[in-house]
């Protein structure tokens, strides 16, 4: 047994060496990014490079520091790992550089869809996809004799049956914490109703409409079946409820699916019967009530070319096909050549097939997201009407957009 392990390990090492994936860089690399297992794996792989120091600062607060950390000249961070929402803040401040030359020189292993092209210039390299989709308990649905829901209406009906049968008091989970999470759930639901956030080609917001009201009403109906503390539950707290066996149906991030049943103290039934399917539709629509996300990396603008090249080489090494192994494969839906989807990736793949909308990459979307997060909680608590909440969000956004110079 021990012998085979060693033999296996040495053959992997030999393979790595022969694959010519040794990574040699000549300058410093400093990465800032979010904190979850897939990103740790990328950063760890980048750290294999020799010749220059590779540092990484991975923290949930990355968005509070990445713009500031890349604004100086020379910039503190040579790369920020971002998603389609957060690249906008870096683009707005003009702190990342086009990568066309570097892709031509060092980007042989990269696939075309990985290259994020804005106005004809490659600005980032994506390495994973993410989306929110249905996570459910197969045993509970079996007990009430219901197929896994395809729409939010089905989900509500199932939740009602579960409660009436006395199986669970609050069978629905949702990351509805006031702020970013709540706004994201609204975005999903609003897009599922076929809504659009802005008047075409302008920064003028338009969400106080039929779809907006319908989206909020659906969220309210769902919250009736949630833990009463739902306005304080982010995705961590929602997962904890699911792990404890208190929740049977929830809309959850694909990047969480692989590790959902892994933590200490997870109830055995949850481990045995957790299942995943694609995102739900709503109100008879065909578009999924979800958004598609990619995570990728960028290279800072205000650094010497040598550092930019070293950063590009190290991070390309970080997402090369050889970094995929038993441990890293289930961590994400990798946009890397040779990646074989695991069971945990099924939901995100279905989201891609269901023509789910990507999260809009607009310079002012972040302002709307913040405004929604602050203004929708009054409606969820029953303190005001849906129309009033949407009107509040619109005026909060408009004030912010005027300040930032997006609106006059």
């Amino acid at each position, binding site marked *: 047994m021990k012998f085979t392990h060693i033999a296996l390990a040495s053959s992997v090492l030999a393979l790595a060496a022969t694959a010519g994936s040794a990574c040699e860089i000549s300058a410093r690399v400093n990465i800032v990014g979010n904190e979850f297992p897939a990103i740790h794996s990328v950063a760890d792989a980048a750290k294999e490079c020799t010749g220059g120091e590779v540092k990484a600062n991975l923290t949930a607060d990355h968005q509070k520091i990445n713009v500031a950390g890349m604004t100086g000249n020379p910039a503190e961070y040579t790369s920020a790992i971002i998603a389609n929402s957060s690249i906008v803040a870096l683009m707005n401040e003009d702190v990342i550089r086009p990568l066309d030359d570097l892709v031509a020189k060092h980007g042989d292993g990269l696939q075309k869809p990985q290259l994020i092209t804005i106005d004809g210039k490659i600005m980032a390299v994506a390495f994973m996809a993410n989306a929110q989709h249905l996570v459910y308990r197969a045993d509970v649905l079996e007990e009430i004799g219901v197929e896994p829901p395809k729409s939010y209406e089905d989900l509500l009906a199932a939740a009602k049956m579960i409660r009436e049968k006395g199986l669970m008091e609050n069978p629905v989970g949702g990351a509805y914490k006031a702020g970013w999470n709540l706004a994201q759930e609204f975005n999903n639901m609003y897009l599922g109703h076929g809504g659009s956030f802005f008047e075409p080609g302008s920064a003028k917001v338009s969400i106080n409409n039929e779809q907006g009201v319908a989206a909020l009403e659906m969220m309210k109906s769902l919250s009736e079946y949630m833990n009463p503390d739902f306005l*304080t539950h982010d995705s961590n707290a929602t997962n904890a409820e699911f792990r404890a066996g208190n929740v049977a149906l929830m809309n959850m991030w694909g990047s969480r699916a692989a590790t959902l049943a892994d933590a200490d103290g997870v109830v055995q039934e949850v481990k045995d019967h957790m299942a995943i399917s694609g995102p739900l539709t709503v109100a008879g629509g065909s578009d999924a009530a979800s958004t598609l996300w990619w995570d990728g990396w960028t290279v800072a603008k205000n650094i010497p070319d040598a550092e930019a090249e070293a950063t590009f080489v190290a991070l390309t090494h970080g997402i090369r096909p050889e970094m995929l192994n038993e441990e890293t494969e289930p961590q994400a839906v990798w946009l890397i050549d040779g990646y074989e989807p695991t069971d945990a990736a099924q939901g995100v793949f279905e989201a891609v097939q269901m023509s789910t909308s990507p999260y809009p990459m607009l310079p002012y979307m972040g302002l709307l997201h913040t405004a929604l997060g602050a203004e929708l909680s009054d409606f969820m608590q029953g303190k005001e009407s849906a129309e009033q909440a949407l009107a509040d969000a619109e005026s909060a956004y408009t004030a912010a957009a005027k300040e930032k110079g997006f609106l006059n």
Partner: protein
Amino acid sequence: MKHRTFFWFFLPTGLAMLLFIALPIVSVLFQSVHTPHDAVLVTVENCGPFGCKEETTIDQEATRALRDAEPLGKFVGLQIYFDRGHLAVAEVAEAWRSTDSIGAFLGEISDLPFYRAMGFTLTYTFTVTPLLIVLGLMIALAVNSLNRHLKGLVIFFSLLPMIVTPLIGSLILFWMIDSRGVLGSALQYLTDDPTLSLKASTGLTWVMLIIYGVWHSAPFAFVVFYAGLQTLPQDQLESAQIDGATRWQRVRYVVVPHLMPLVTFVALIQLMDNFRVFEPIVGFNAEAHATSFSWIIFNDMGGETRLLSSAATTSVLTILGVAVLLTPVLIRTWQDFKGKT
């Protein structure tokens, strides 16, 4: 002291104050009357893993030209102060016109972020401050009358709430009052209401935050008052005792007047501290029910698209608020000081 001597004596301190207090305030003031330039937007084609799409982006060349022409940004005067995120002048006027009772007017106003934050901040400040002074005094009197062998231990334990960082303290309490936590379950059992949740109701959230605030700051008042109690005029207390004053009368007529300057000091510090209430709101995830000025600043600076002018404006308004709040206490201190000289 001669003026010359005083000048050289005070110079280093004065410079430090200028550098670390006055200049930042000036810079915040400056920022609050400027906004970023108008963004020049262009429509471009974006491509990625999910296909290509026409999207809007900022024209960096054109924006840089604007920025170089006016490096400070656009001067907007008091526009940010009056917008919906702050004093909301237009919205308040509209609410005044469209409502027919004070209650309805206040209801409309409390929907605006600044006034909602003001409502909680002032309630918090004016309940927590007196409560913590009373509680601190009670603990100090109790500890002072303990046997001296016990004192050290009791003082140590009484100070613990202050040693815990506010954010961590509130997070611990947050999980204890969860409907599945120790205190939450106990409350559900005691009230015989399995649906009771402290975190789901605005009123209970406020009560919780206020209790937390008192719990956290009472040790500070306690320690100050306890130090003050060590300087009690013993002759006066003894003569009061001989005259037949009860324990309560001695506290009321001798101890409290003796501690009055310290009460002013604690009130001054705590009014300021409580006006800046922030960590408990984050720790208790309470932003759906309660916000404060500091929280608004945090929220403006933490978003994906930072609202720096807005944050600066709220900071200036907070400084003004603290100044207004402290004026009565400062006047009192000044009068005490003049009375003594």
